[in-house]
């Protein structure tokens, strides 16, 4: 009896793990590179990954461009961010409910240049999108703007 119950529980665990895995994979992809030029890479969990058109981004990834680099990223709420050369852009928080359009989008331009076209998150909730730099916090109520942060 005990062992039967154990097996049943184990089956449930396996079934559960299998069912959430693809959902987790889907939910963690929040954006894709749409443009890359020169040297562009991602920092994710201490690892450096190459970035090409079609590469997925996850919340908490950091985008880094070299002296010849630039990159454009489209998020699933239709926000568009692009960075110029010698830039470091950290995605610190990204959440988007595609039914209600509620969410949160916080990024940090540590250095370099950034162009922003805000999307559905900022349109739904005026204080949900923020861009930080080492010396300021930008509250985004739409829609298009540019930021340079010099270190």
């Amino acid at each position, binding site marked *: 009896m005990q062992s039967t119950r154990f097996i049943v529980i184990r089956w449930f665990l396996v079934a559960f793990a299998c069912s959430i895995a693809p959902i987790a994979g889907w939910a963690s992809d929040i954006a894709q590179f*749409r443009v890359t030029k020169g040297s562009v890479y991602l920092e994710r969990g201490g690892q450096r990954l190459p970035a090409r058109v079609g590469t997925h981004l996850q919340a908490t990834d950091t985008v880094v461009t070299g002296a010849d680099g630039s990159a454009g990223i489209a998020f699933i709420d239709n926000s568009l961010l692009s960075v110029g050369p010698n830039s470091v852009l950290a995605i610190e928080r990204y959440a988007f409910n*595609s039914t209600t359009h509620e969410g949160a989008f916080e990024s940090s331009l540590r250095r370099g240049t950034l162009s922003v076209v805000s999307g559905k998150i900022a349109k739904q909730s005026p204080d949900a999108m923020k861009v930080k730099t080492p010396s300021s916090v930008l*509250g985004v*109520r*739409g829609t298009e703007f*540019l930021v340079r942060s*010099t270190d």
Partner: protein
Amino acid sequence: MHRHYAALIASMVLGGCATSNQDFIVLLPDKEGKVGTVVVQSQKGKAVLNTAYAAARTTPDGGVQRSTASQSEVKDVFASALAAQPSRPMSFILYFESGNDEFTEESKQEVKRLLAEMARRQAPDITVIGHTDLVGPNPSNDALSLQRAERVKSILAGMGIPAERILTAGRGRREPLIPTAEGIPEPRNRRVEINVR
């Protein structure tokens, strides 16, 4: 570190003239000429940017200085970032024939335009968004709109669009195309929208 000392010395020598150690923020008009709002909050200052080319610079003492940027200045500083902007997302709207699973004739043409736009873009991803009219409460409309989106996803996947590039969403009754009173059946609101990125 050396650079910071150099900047500090330079700022002392120049007697408070601007150093390069600043943020520079510029609000742009959108494609239709409309402008939004960005609020810049620094350690000791705040600036509200809400006109085209309104700009702000943070100052070494933690403040914010408001100004207006020239287009040539924008080009000098931001040309590379602007050139790397992704293409704007495009939206396509599809309708089903009432009572069956077929797209209307007009929507079949719209599907062709959608596929052409996807072919123009490199490795595009799309979101398929179902919408309903204002008949019934949120939960049932959320479920219904997601079902419609899933149905369109499987049709598009059947046309060869990789399923992993298709997200689905059920927006329910929150975004009617034609505003109507509560409870009014409106076929133009029962639609599926596709965002191509």
